[in-house]
């Protein structure tokens, strides 16, 4: 069986769930194996119900110990479900959470891990995937030789799947948690600004660099442009090091990896560490006053100029002639 682990927030599946459905359907069809989904959380019912529109069998673990989700409780639940349901492939999103519990589930299950893959397929009974290595510059083909195979799928790497023709059903699953699963205590959770689209899920990302000169100018230009485009806000390492923006908005090797349809790099020079976080974007636009900045070499469209002049002009151009 192919098992999808559904991550959710605010009572709805995350976008990654529908991407995994597409990946899972292809693996199921190619291997003749059934497809099932796993939803974790005390209030997982609404999420599970939504998933029945996509997957025939949805298993839900309603347990207060999964709220808030912690890596060890999630590991226990996913490893137990994989074994109890006889999964040969466990698909998880390569979210921060999935990258954290994925290796633990694989090791605990005596299986293999294919991490942060951009594609995955069966070759006979063997699971083969592609993934990016060397700061996202080299595409590697990797092969798993143990079962179950835990596959974390890069966010945005697969298309969102359409609804199924028939409705599935929900099954309750109990998990034998152990005391050690709760040895870390969550004392506080800080959320990113509500209402703004999550960086990894955004179709458009606007990223700014130090060239804006100040935190206030960054807010006035980058954040305003992002809001106008319903885009995610990103920042370079220099910007977060300066304390203008939170670390959660940093894009690059030491920050987040994004692959939006459109990426606007504003006053971003394009160091290789930054490029590794965004070089899979569909269309890249660069604005930089240095015509020799490396970012122009990896951009589709470039404007050489001062962001403090170009960005307001871009805002006006987007608003149209009226």
């Amino acid at each position, binding site marked *: 069986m192919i098992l999808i682990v559904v991550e959710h927030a605010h009572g709805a599946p995350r976008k990654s769930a529908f991407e995994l459905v597409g990946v899972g359907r292809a693996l199921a069809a190619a291997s003749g194996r059934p497809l099932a989904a796993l939803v974790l959380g005390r209030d997982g019912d609404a999420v599970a119900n939504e998933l029945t529109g996509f997957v025939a069998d949805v298993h839900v673990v309603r347990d207060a110990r999964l709220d808030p989700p912690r*890596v060890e409780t999630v*590991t226990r639940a996913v490893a137990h479900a994989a074994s109890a349901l006889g999964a040969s492939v466990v698909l998880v999103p390569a*979210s*921060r959470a999935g*990258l*954290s519990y*994925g*290796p*633990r589930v694989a*090791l605990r299950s005596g299986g*293999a*891990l294919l*991490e*942060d893959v951009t594609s995955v397929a069966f070759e006979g009974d063997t699971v083969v995937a592609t993934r*990016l*290595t060397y*700061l996202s*510059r*080299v*595409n*590697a*083909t*990797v*092969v*798993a*030789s*143990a079962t179950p195979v835990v596959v974390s799928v890069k966010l945005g790497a697969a298309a969102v799947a359409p609804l199924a023709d028939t409705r599935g059903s929900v099954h309750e699953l109990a998990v034998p948690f152990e005391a050690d699963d709760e040895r*870390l205590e*969550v*004392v506080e*959770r*800080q*959320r*990113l600004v509500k209402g703004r689209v*999550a960086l*990894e899920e955004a179709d458009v990302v606007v990223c700014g660099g130090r060239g804006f000169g100040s935190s206030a100018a960054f807010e006035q230009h980058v954040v305003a442009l992002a809001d106008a485009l319903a885009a995610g806000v990103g920042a370079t*390492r220099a910007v977060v*090091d300066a304390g203008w923006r939170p*670390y*959660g908005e940093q894009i690059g090797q*030491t*920050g987040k990896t994004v692959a939006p*349809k*459109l990426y606007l790099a504003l006053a971003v020079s394009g160091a*290789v*560490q930054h490029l590794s976080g965004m070089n899979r974007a569909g*269309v890249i*636009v660069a604005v930089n006053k240095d015509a020799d900045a490396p970012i122009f070499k990896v*951009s*589709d*469209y*470039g*404007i*050489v*100029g001062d962001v403090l002049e*170009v960005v307001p*002009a*871009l805002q*006006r*151009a987007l608003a149209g002639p009226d």
Partner: protein
Amino acid sequence: MKIVTILKQVPDAEARVRTKDGVLDLAGTTFVIDGMDEYGVEHALRLREAGAEAEIVAVAYGPPASEQVLRSALALGADRAVLLEAEAQLDPLALAGALAALIREQGADLVLTGGMQADWDSAALGPAVAEALGWPHVDWATAFRLDGERFEAVHDVDDGSETLRGSLPVVITTQQGLNEPRYPTLPNIMKAKRKPLEVRPADVETVQTEARSFEVLARERRRTVLEGDPGSATAELVRLLRDEAKVL
């Protein structure tokens, strides 16, 4: 207490990576300590400077040349070093078993390692080592404080950050924001040459995942530079994004 910091030698980020017939060619590449791992060494030193009585053991895995990164860690202030020698790029799960055995043998109660490897682009090592040890882990830590056996850590999660509390032992994966790593001084670099460095083969049982081939990712971009004043250049940009790229 005993702190183990796990290190890896990786190609310099600026180095050009080549592939030929599906095989990686790293000839002539400069290798450096993985930047993500440096935060771990630095944090071990800071915990000791803040009063924790700690022996710091730097552990690296990789080819013989990886001794270099251990010498760097010793120059920064680690007390001794162990190199687990392995030629090939190892599956993090298999490697975790070998590292866990060493960590147990050393009697460590805190393990620090980078949040992501700059060669394999993998975040799996820290969680896998914790799993192999039966310890909890906190990944992507931006703060970590010790009070005796108790710790408090702040780490990044998908939609923000979380503050966690627990007791040692624990594996922490480190990243930018945790601290600002120091540079070694010349006298300490000299002193590091006399600190103990042990080399032994990595005892890896079964490898469950193998790389079959590599190919440098080359993506052609349009590289169109739009001329003119900001008004006309941005008007043209919006037109191209709508009509040519069709992303608006």
